[in-house]
């Protein structure tokens, strides 16, 4: 008995020690009674990469905007207007030469000044096909060379003119990094050296990542005034984020579940912010594989899907359904009333189209590939029920996103649910989703007209014509129906009353660097 008691005491002591240790470590993140000058943001995902050009995930990009800067700033909330960030000005010298002039006062967070050499280094490294250096070379294929003309001038040589190259340079993976840092063998994490107003402090795997304010930020005009540190807490479960917000553990809650919004609205301390989003969820076909190589059948499916109900069920009405394949708000985007014809929800028409396609109701059984997580697992049964109404039986195959991508890339699917979120560059949408033999062309579309029009949209310098091409292509897709665009959810963010200075975009590329809470 004594021995057992001793043992028990030892166990208890051991556990208490671990406990105490853990508690101490957690102390940093313990945010009860948040001081005013810190900002804690509850996010739905964990960051997974600290080197900007090794990734392209929204959550990471939200962090890089704090620590790094791009050449130019693309204002998603303002018609994708370009403004200076690191580059004071820029111009196309001819069809293949783009020149940037940098500000001259920029300093990295390790004190070294930023020069054209750093920009050239960054862009050239990003162009590398070596996956240990860069994983985003796919977006820079047009570039043939980047060189520093002098300390503050960079010249980019391209193989052809592109309307959208400049937008690529405004993407977060292409934030400018320090050449010197990479060349310093002592620096084990050179990618942490950036010019942004914050610097990386700590990433506690599975829990949070914290950034602290720099004292020596170069751009006084954009200098953040309040938050001395910004923490992203990874609260993967939506309801938890809401509760955490209400309990004051976090100041901002990204993507609160729509069903909980009424509780947040009742809460006097909380503001619910809503704005139009850009991320498109769609139902797509494998147009190379029976039975959806049949255009009429695809049109029938398009007519059978009750998009508004999906918006109601999945988003509690907070979203818009659409017909165009482009992301809402993108340049040249055609809203539902601007589309010619189209195949909107109409069961009778769907049945007629099904008959036209040569199928009897009940004759067809198809597989729908869907990811196991939200919202796909909710959309899939609705699609199933919709198609059931016109006599198409759907068997849902659930799989994780990785498998889904592989399966779709290999063309095993008949129907699948997926998403797309590109705002500034419509060419990427046309090219990556529909261009013949493009790796991410999961619809397996091979259409010469589409390819030709996509190329035109990319290179046409006459804005009028370019717009027309894009509209034509959108209308063509509406008729071709390689995918049934479903809806774009609104961006919903809940935060403490008094939050100011946050730059929020419908696509999710938020900038929190100047956010603070007014007491």
């Amino acid at each position, binding site marked *: 008995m004594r021995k*057992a008691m001793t043992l028990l005491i030892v166990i208890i002591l051991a556990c208490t020690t671990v406990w105490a240790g*853990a*508690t101490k470590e957690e102390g940093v993140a*313990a945010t009860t009674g948040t001081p005013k000058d810190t900002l804690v943001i509850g996010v739905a995902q964990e960051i997974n990469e600290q080197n900007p050009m090794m990734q392209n995930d929204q959550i990471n990009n939200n962090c890089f905007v704090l620590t790094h800067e791009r050449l130019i700033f693309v204002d998603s909330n303002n018609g994708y207007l370009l403004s200076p960030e690191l580059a004071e000005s820029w111009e196309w010298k001819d069809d293949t030469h783009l020149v940037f002039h940098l500000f001259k006062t920029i300093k990295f967070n390790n004190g070294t000044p930023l020069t054209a050499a750093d920009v050239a280094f960054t862009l050239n490294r990003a162009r590398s096909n070596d*996956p240990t250096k860069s994983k985003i070379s*796919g977006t820079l294929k047009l570039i043939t060379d980047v060189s520093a003309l002098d300390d503050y001038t960079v010249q980019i040589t391209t193989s052809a003119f592109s309307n959208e190259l400049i937008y690529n340079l405004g993407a977060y993976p292409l934030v400018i990094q320090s050449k010197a840092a990479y060349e310093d063998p002592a620096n084990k994490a050179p990618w942490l050296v950036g010019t942004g107003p914050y610097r990386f402090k700590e990433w506690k795997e599975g829990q949070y990542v914290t950034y602290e304010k720099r004292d020596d930020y170069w751009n006084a005009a954009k200098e953040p005034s309040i938050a001395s540190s910004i923490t992203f807490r990874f609260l993967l479960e939506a309801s*938890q984020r809401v509760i955490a917000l209400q309990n004051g553990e976090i100041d901002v809650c990204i993507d609160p579940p729509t069903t909980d919004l009424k509780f947040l609205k009742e809460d006097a301390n909380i503001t619910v912010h809503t704005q139009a989003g850009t991320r498109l969820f769609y139902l797509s076909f494998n147009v190379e594989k029976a039975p959806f190589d049949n255009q009429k059948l695809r049109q029938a499916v398009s007519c059978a899907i009750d998009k508004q109900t999906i918006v109601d069920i999945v988003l509690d009405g907070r979203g818009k359904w659409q017909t165009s394949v482009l992301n809402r708000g993108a340049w040249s985007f055609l809203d539902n009333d601007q589309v010619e014809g189209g195949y909107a929800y109409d069961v009778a028409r769907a049945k007629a189209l099904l008959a036209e396609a040569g199928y009897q109701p009940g004759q067809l059984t198809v597989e729908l590939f869907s990811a196991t997580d939200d919202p796909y697992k909710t959309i899939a049964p609705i699609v199933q029920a919709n198609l059931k109404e016109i006599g198409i039986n759907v068997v849902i195959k659930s799989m994780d996103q990785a*498998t889904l991508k592989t399966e779709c*890339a290999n063309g095993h699917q008949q129907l699948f649910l997926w998403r797309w979120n590109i705002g500034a560059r419509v060419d990427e949408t046309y090219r990556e989703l529909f261009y013949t033999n493009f*790796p991410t062309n999961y619809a397996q579309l091979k259409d010469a007209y589409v390819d030709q029009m996509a190329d035109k949209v990319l290179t046409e310098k006459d804005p009028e014509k370019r717009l027309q091409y894009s509209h034509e292509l959108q209308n063509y897709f509406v008729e071709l129906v390689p995918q049934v665009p479903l809806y774009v959810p609104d961006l919903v963010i809940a935060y403490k009353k008094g939050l100011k200075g946050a730059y929020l975009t419908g696509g999710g590329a938020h900038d929190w660097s100047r956010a603070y809470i007014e007491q």
Partner: protein
Amino acid sequence: MIPTLLVTSLLIFWAMDLAGGDPVNQILPENATYEQREILREQMGFNDPFMVRYFRYIGGILSGDMGKSYISGLDVFGTFMGRLHMTLLLGGSALIFACLISVPLGIYTALHQNTWKDTLATVLALFGVSMPNFWLGLMLILLFSLKLGWLPSGGTGGIQYLVLPAVTVGLSLAALLTRTTRSAMLDVIRQDYMTTAKAKGASYRRVIYNHGLRNAMIPIVTAVGMQFSYVMTGSALAETVFGWPGIGRLVVDSINKRDTPMVTGSIILCCVLMAIINLAVDIVYAFCDPRIKAQYSGRS
């Protein structure tokens, strides 16, 4: 132990290999070029035959490298270790909580066998065993976080963050252990040596605690040892429900993301962990049972 781990690693490696999902899709963004995909495949040796990859992996482990996550690029061993203490903290607290409840309750019910108190406690324990613990977790959140607002619903931090997950895992464990303790105690009570002790004139307390519990400890410790894998399972669920960054959730998340190195590595490390725990249980066991101690010390 070593062959077991080898077979386990082979099985897991094979299973993860068969599971769908191209690792290149995990590592590269969607718009990566064919060219870059091929370079990556070559670099990572994805094109090699299965056994080559497996032995390379084992070789890596032997040289202390368990690989890097496809998703976060972090070192697998480091990530696992970084989360291990969270799971140990949760599992340990749950176990202590369970023991503190179940051992006294089990003894009490055994001593009051077939009275209403016994029936009540037994039925409660049955309810505890019958509850899915993730559901219990949800209900606890509903009550203590949402309705009462006493405790945080998830995440990490001070002790208040530990309470709900530990209770969630601990309650069903407590229910199980109460039943074990009760039946162990009932078994012991029937033994002749208990009558011997009573016949010696030992007081009731002495008989129960000095003679009874010491013997009942043996099956109880066995049960606790057997329950470690249950604790891990329970933790995996509770960690998901409460957003507790432990290894259970790590494995589940990694599988959902097809993070093969993380899954393989974590499961192998889990096995090592279980082996260590089993060893610890054996040692505790030897403390409780001199017959086993004798086996270890070589006396008969």
